[in-house]
C-alpha cells in the first residue's frame, strides 16, 4: 500500500514517544530506582530524624512532579492510613509489652487466657516501650510514603510498556484492565439508573445486587469477546514453543530450585550459602526472563527509552544507600536509634548529605501541562441531520 496523498515520512524523525517528556521529565524506571534506593536508605538509617527527612523528600516529589493526578491526591490518604496503622501497632505493643523503667501510667490490666497467648493487657505503660514501638512503626510509615510518592509521580503506562517482553501478555492484561476501568464505572452508573427506571424511580432493595452485578459483568464479558476478536484480527497471539522459550522455562525452574535451596540453607543456619543461592536463583529467573523476551518477535511502538539523564539519576540515587552502608561500616552509631536509655536522636552531617542525594530528581522540573488546542479538540459543529 502507499497512501498517495500522505506526506513523505523520512527515516530521520524521532521514533520514540516524546509526548510525556515535558510533563514527566523522568522515566518510570528511574522513579522505581528512586523508590528502592529510598527504601534501602530507610532501612540503613532508621533514626526518626532521617525517616522524617525522607518523608519530607517524598512529599516534595509529589508536590513538584505529581501535578493534580488522582494518584497525587491519594498520597496524603495513603500516608494517613499508614499513620493510623502505626498508631494501632504502637498502642498494641504498649498495652501488651511490659517491664523496664520509666513507667508513664498504670492502667487496670487483665491477663488473657492461655489460648489467646496468656499475657497481660493493660497494666503498666513504659516510656521506652512506647518510644521503641513508635520508632519502628515510623520506619513503615516512611516506606509507605516512599512508594505512595513513586505511585503519584510515575506514568503507569510507561511501567506497563517497559515490562520485559516475556511479560507482554500480563502487561497487556493490566493495560486492558486499566483502560476498562472508566467504562466499568460508567456501566455501574448506567445499570443502577436503569434499575431505578424499571420501577418508575422507586428503588427496590431486594435482589438489587444480582440485578446490578449481572448486567455489569455481562456487558464487560461481551466487550471482552469483541475486544478479543479485534486483537486476534490484528495479529495478536503468542508464537509457538521455540527453543528459546523451552530453555527459558527450564532456566526459570532452576531459579526456583535455587531459591528453595536458599531456604534449606537458612533452616540449617548457614546464611552465606543462602545468600549465594538467592543470588543464583535471582540470576536464573532474570536469565529466564531475558531468554523468553529475546524469543519474542513483537516490536514496540515509540517506547520511552531510558535517556542518559535517567541513567545519571539512577546512579546518583543509588549512591545514597551505598554511602549510608559505608557510614555504617565506618562505625557511625547515629544512623539508628535506641529507645533505652531514652534520649534525643542525634544527626550526623554525612548521613544527611547522603540522604540529600535522594533530592536529585529536582534538577529537572516538569513543564506546565500542555493545554489541548481547543480547535482540534472540538469537533466542527455538526450540521443539521440530513438523511442521504
Amino acid at each position, binding site marked *: 500500500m502507499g497512501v498517495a496523498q500522505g506526506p513523505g515520512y523520512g527515516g530521520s524523525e524521532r521514533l520514540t514517544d516524546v509526548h510525556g517528556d515535558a510533563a514527566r521529565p523522568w522515566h518510570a524506571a528511574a522513579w522505581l530506582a528512586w523508590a528502592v534506593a529510598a*527504601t534501602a536508605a530507610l*532501612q540503613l538509617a532508621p533514626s526518626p530524624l532521617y525517616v522524617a527527612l525522607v518523608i519530607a523528600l517524598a512529599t516534595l516529589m509529589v508536590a513538584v512532579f505529581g501535578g493534580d493526578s488522582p494518584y497525587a491526591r491519594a*498520597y496524603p490518604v*495513603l500516608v494517613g492510613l499508614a499513620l493510623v496503622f502505626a498508631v494501632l501497632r504502637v498502642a*498494641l*505493643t504498649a498495652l*501488651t*509489652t511490659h517491664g523496664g523503667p520509666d513507667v508513664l501510667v498504670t492502667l487496670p490490666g487483665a491477663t488473657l487466657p492461655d489460648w489467646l497467648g496468656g*499475657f497481660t493487657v493493660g497494666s503498666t505503660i513504659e516510656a521506652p516501650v512506647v518510644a521503641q*514501638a513508635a520508632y519502628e512503626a515510623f*520506619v*513503615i510509615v516512611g*516506606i*509507605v510514603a516512599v512508594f505512595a510518592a513513586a*505511585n503519584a509521580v*510515575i506514568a503507569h503506562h510507561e511501567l506497563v510498556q517497559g515490562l520485559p517482553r*516475556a*511479560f507482554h*501478555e*500480563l502487561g*497487556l*492484561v*493490566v*493495560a*486492558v*484492565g*486499566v483502560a*476498562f*476501568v472508566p467504562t*466499568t*464505572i460508567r456501566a*455501574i452508573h448506567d445499570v443502577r439508573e436503569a434499575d431505578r427506571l424499571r420501577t418508575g424511580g422507586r428503588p427496590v432493595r431486594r435482589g438489587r*445486587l*444480582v440485578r446490578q*452485578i449481572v448486567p455489569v459483568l455481562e456487558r*464487560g464479558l461481551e*466487550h*471482552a*469477546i469483541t*475486544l*478479543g*476478536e*479485534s486483537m*486476534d484480527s490484528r495479529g*495478536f*497471539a503468542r508464537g509457538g514453543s521455540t527453543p528459546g522459550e523451552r530453555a*527459558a*522455562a527450564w532456566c*526459570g*525452574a532452576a531459579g*526456583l530450585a535455587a*531459591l*528453595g535451596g536458599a*531456604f534449606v540453607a*537458612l533452616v540449617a543456619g548457614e*546464611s552465606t550459602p543462602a545468600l549465594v543461592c*538467592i543470588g543464583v536463583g*535471582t540470576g536464573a*529467573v532474570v536469565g529466564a*526472563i531475558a531468554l523468553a523476551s529475546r524469543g519474542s518477535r513483537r516490536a514496540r511502538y515509540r517506547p520511552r527509552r531510558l535517556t542518559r539523564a535517567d541513567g545519571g539519576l539512577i546512579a546518583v540515587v543509588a549512591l545514597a544507600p551505598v554511602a549510608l552502608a559505608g557510614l555504617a561500616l565506618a562505625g557511625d552509631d547515629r544512623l539508628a536509634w535506641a529507645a533505652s536509655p531514652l534520649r534525643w536522636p542525634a544527626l550526623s552531617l554525612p548521613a544527611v548529605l547522603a540522604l540529600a542525594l535522594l533530592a536529585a530528581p529536582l534538577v529537572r522540573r516538569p513543564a506546565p501541562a500542555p493545554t489541548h488546542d481547543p480547535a482540534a479538540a472540538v469537533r466542527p459543529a455538526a450540521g443539521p441531520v440530513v438523511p442521504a
Partner: protein
Amino acid sequence: MTRARPALVYVLVAVVGVAAFLYPFWIPAEALPARAHAADAPLWAALVGGLVVAAITLEVRRGTMNGATVAVLGVLSAASGLLRLVDLPGNNAGIFFLVVLAGAAFGARFGLLLGVSAMAVSAVVTGGIGPWLPFQMLALGAMGAGAGAFDPVARRLGRRGEVVALAAYGWVWGFAYGAVMNLWSWPFLPGDGPTQWRPGLGLTRTLEHYWAYYVATSFAWDAAGALGNAVLILVTGGALLPTLRRVAHRLEPVVELAPPAPVA
C-alpha cells in the same frame, strides 16, 4: 521430561512461595546477623516473592494466550479491582468473590492468572505498587487457583450445593488472606513483646505470638471480610456462574473441521 516441567514448576512455586510467606515461623535467629537487620527480612521476602511471581508468569503464559483470554482477564481484573473500592458488605470482599467465581468457572490456570492480574490492576488503579504487591498477587492467585481446583468437587453437589461450597471456600479464604497478608508486615517490628516477632523464637512460641497478634489486630476485621465473601458468593453465584461459563468456550475454542468439499 518436558511434560513434567510444568508440574515441577508448580510444586516449586508452591514450596518456595509458602516458605517465603511463612519465614517468620521457621527462620533461625542465627540466619539474621543483627537484630537491627531482622527488619530487612520482609524486603528479602518481597524479592523472593517477586521472583516467584515472575517464574510462575513465565510458566503460565506458555499455552496459547489468545485475544479473548487477555481481554476477559483484563475486563475481570478491572471489575474486581473496582469492586474492591465499592462499598460492599465486608472489607475488600469485592476483589475476592469474583476471583473465586471466575476461578471456579474457568479453571485453576485462569484463576491463578486472574488473581495475579486483578491485584496488579488494582495496584495500578489505587497507586498501591510497593514491596507488598508480590505477596498480594501470590495470595490472590492461590485463592483463584484453589477455587479452580476445588470446583470439580463442589460441582458434584448440584447447582445450589456448588454455590454453597464455593461460599464456604470464600469464607475460609477471608481469614486465610488476612492471616497471610499480616505475615508480610508483622516481622517489620521485631521485638520482645508477647505479640511481636523475634527471630529464633521457635515454631510453637512464634505461633502463639502470631495468634495473639492476629486476634488483637485482625480477627474482627477478617471475620467481617470472610462473611462478606460468603454472602456475596451465595447471593450472586447462582446468576454469575452460568454467565461466566457461557464465555468459557471462547478462551480455548474447540474447532471441528470437516474435510473440504470437493471442488466442483
